[in-house]
């Protein structure tokens, strides 16, 4: 697909299996793991806990972004309010120049704002990186609709057993990519 050029990757040889059933996909994943395959890619049109359980991937770093963003936002909120108050002290309503209670509101809003922004940027960054990872060349539009898929990177020599394994697990179709 030419239009994918912004996200084009170098080709990786391998086997792409299309599954119609969730269960079969889960079995295939298990089987691949058993036969010692690493770094294969699973496509699914929706998030299914069965897949997550089967893949048992490490925890995403995104939460770190959120935390950092939140903390940064809060401190920025505190800083601008207090600094700006004391930079040019102006009395209003007989209140202290820098009075914390009203500033808490600003701090809170900044926390959420920065937290949310870093999260979004973080996840977009990560997913795009993911999209650029090896093995994601072979793709089938049905994967965002109603089919699950597994792509196993494999040289032509040892593609055979993989195809058999996937077939065995109930892949609806298997092709070399």
């Amino acid at each position, binding site marked *: 697909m030419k*239009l*994918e050029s912004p*996200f084009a990757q170098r080709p990786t040889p391998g086997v792409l299996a299309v599954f*119609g*059933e*969730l*269960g*079969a996909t889960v079995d295939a994943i298990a089987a691949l793991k058993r036969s010692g395959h690493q770094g294969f*890619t699973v*496509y*699914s*049109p*929706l*998030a*299914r*806990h*069965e*897949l*997550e359980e089967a893949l048992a*991937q490490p925890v*995403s*770093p*995104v*939460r770190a972004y959120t935390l950092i963003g939140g903390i940064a936002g809060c401190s920025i909120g505190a800083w601008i*309010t207090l600094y*700006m*108050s004391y*930079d*040019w002290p102006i009395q*209003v*309503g007989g*209140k202290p120049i820098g009075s914390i209670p*009203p*500033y808490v*509101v*600003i701090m*809170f*809003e*900044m926390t*959420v*704002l920065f*937290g*949310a922004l870093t*999260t*979004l940027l*973080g*996840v977009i960054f*990560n*997913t*795009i990186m*993911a*999209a650029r*990872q090896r093995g*994601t060349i072979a*793709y089938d*539009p049905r*994967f*965002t*609709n*109603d089919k699950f898929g597994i792509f196993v990177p494999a040289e032509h020599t040892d593609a055979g057993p993989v195809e058999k394994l996937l077939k065995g697990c109930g892949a609806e179709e298997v092709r070399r990519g």
Partner: protein
Amino acid sequence: MTTHTTTRAQTPTHHTLSYDDVTRTIARTLGSPGRGYYVLLACAVTMLGIGVICLLYLFRYGLGLAGYSMPTYWAVYITCFVFWVGIAHSGTLISAILFLFRSGWRTAVYRVAEIMTVFAVMTAGLFPLIHIGRQWFFYWLVPYPNERGLWPNFKSPLVWDEFAIGTYFTVSTCFLIMGLIPDIAAIRDVATGWRKKLYTLTALGWRGTNEQWRHYRPAYLYLAALATPLVLSVHSVVSWDFAMSQVPAWHETLFAPYFVAGAIYSGCAMVITLLIPLRAFFQLEELVTLHHFENLAKLILLTGMIVCYAYVTEYFFAWYGGPTPEREAFWYRAFGRFWWAGWTMNVCNAFLPWLLWSKRIRTNLVALFVISIFVNLGMWMERFVIIAVHLAGEPFESYVRAGYNATWADWGIMLGSFGWFFMWFLLFVKNFPAVSVAEVKEELPPPEHAGRHR
């Protein structure tokens, strides 16, 4: 978790649907629009045009063109501001809070709610700029380093407001985009022509790989976790615009929860108002079912009861607390020059929701639609009463109490705001999935062959 899934699968809603049906149904809504759509869009743009013209007059000659009069220094514009901010609340509530509560029915409706949220905040944000006396200096409210070395006053609720609305708009937008990414990808893979190009770019390369899902899922969760307190805070801050002052009937500790409840109340009503026609228009009956509307109705009922309680409390404490100005204010709300506004608000917001105790009404779309309209009206009127009426009925300085009459400038710009909102809404629903694709699928039983289930 498994049991959870099965119970969800057993919900009476989409047991006949397959993943493919979902994708197709939603993709269908993005087809090339018919005449009806263009008529609606034209109406919206015209309304917007009227608003813009009024606005230009306002800039040229000054706020005097609007109906303001001493002591009614705030009126229709701020009313509209609070109204739209209120509308904006159900969106994030449904998408964030219900997400955290794992209530499955949200998936079919949350996208509409989120779209509404984003555009409502966009609309609301305009009013503070419109209503100030020297609109061309609005940026002085923003803390930016300037030659004069001046900063805004962070003790002013208006500055909190600016931060709250700004944050809320940004976060809701993030949330919307987050939810959209997999769906756009899904549409991309079935779309053709220029739309395909559009979706290919906007899908940001989503393919639903395990890597992407791995980051996506927690990120969505954290956003929800951030958005939830935000929803509650935003309208609290808006309510503090009033509660922080010493105007009787504004100066109430009750205001924050009272406003938040009111906001969700009006928000859900607006969702219904928008969803019922949209559902018919896009033939989404299979995805958006009575079940969803009933749940929305229940939300309205709940928040409506809270609002009702708040009204009663206000009157009770005006009487029980006893300061003359306070009593003065509420006497004025009920029997003053603007009694009609006060009673419209009471009837629409405090009495009408009681109807929803009956399941027959909750599941009757016509009834729901009518009620939702009245709830919107009532909530607009509530803000009008709190803002314009309680200012007009100045309870401290009895000498300046005076009437208030809105003018064409008020109504024109209010009309424009509706045009603005509906223009964006219409443009969006025809070009991006108005119902979540991926998440609706989560509510369906995964495809299995009989006998292979384990």
